[in-house]
């Protein structure tokens, strides 16, 4: 059995990324699309932290992961406000039925 290396973390993050893509393109509900986006951002974060650990780049890689987490929080807040507005206007949040810009 080989030791855990950088490649193990990269494989985990790429599988997570692909699952996030799958969630985004197959789900109708807008909130499920948001969950897929969170999965993708987390996969990117695993890459940042893993490269920072195995490349000995100091703490800068972890700091990039921290910035990504902050941006994800801002993104989730804005997206939730948009989803609530869509629900107020169309009474559902199925993204395949919302195809008009103005009612």
């Amino acid at each position, binding site marked *: 059995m080989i030791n855990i290396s950088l490649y193990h973390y990269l494989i985990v993050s*790429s*599988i*997570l990324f692909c699952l996030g893509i799958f969630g985004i393109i197959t789900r109708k*509900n807008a909130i499920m699309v948001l969950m897929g986006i969170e*999965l993708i951002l987390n996969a990117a974060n695993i890459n940042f932290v893993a490269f920072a650990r195995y490349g000995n780049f100091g703490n800068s890689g972890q700091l990039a992961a921290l910035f990504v987490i*902050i941006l994800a929080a801002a993104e989730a807040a804005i997206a*939730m406000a948009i989803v609530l507005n869509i629900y107020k206007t169309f009474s559902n949040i199925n993204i395949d039925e919302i195809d008009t810009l103005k009612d």
Partner: protein
Amino acid sequence: MTVYDIIFYLFALITIGSAFFVVTLRNIVYSAFFLLFTLFGIAGLYVLLSADFIAIVQLVVYVGGILVLLLFGVMLTHKITNVQIKTGTLQIIPSAVAVLVLAFALIKIFLTTNWKTMELVSQNSSAQGLGVLLINQYSVVFELLGILLLIALIGAASMARR
């Protein structure tokens, strides 16, 4: 097989398994709860990578903030009397094929690239180093992110009230 390996495989299994349920279950509330386990597993992976501060921030911000926000979103966008909180799905077969191809390509690229890696050195807690970096080298980014977060929250509040 050391203890580190066993813990890594455990956390990787938790992360990927519950992420799979997040994107396949039809009930949105179940998906949100499986997202909780995914985020916990990723926090465990951060701890294994000796990024303790990032792991704590992951738990506080993602589990305590974003996940609760998503659950609020689920509750606010479905009628309470309507018990079924289900989501429809589109084009499962073609997207599964496309995603599998993408996954194989990504893993192949990752495995065949010769990454520059160093000898692992044991690290102390990363909180102090991160704090020093934040107020010296990355102080402008830090301030900009603070302003961005403020603007985003004000914008979200005003948009949701309208």
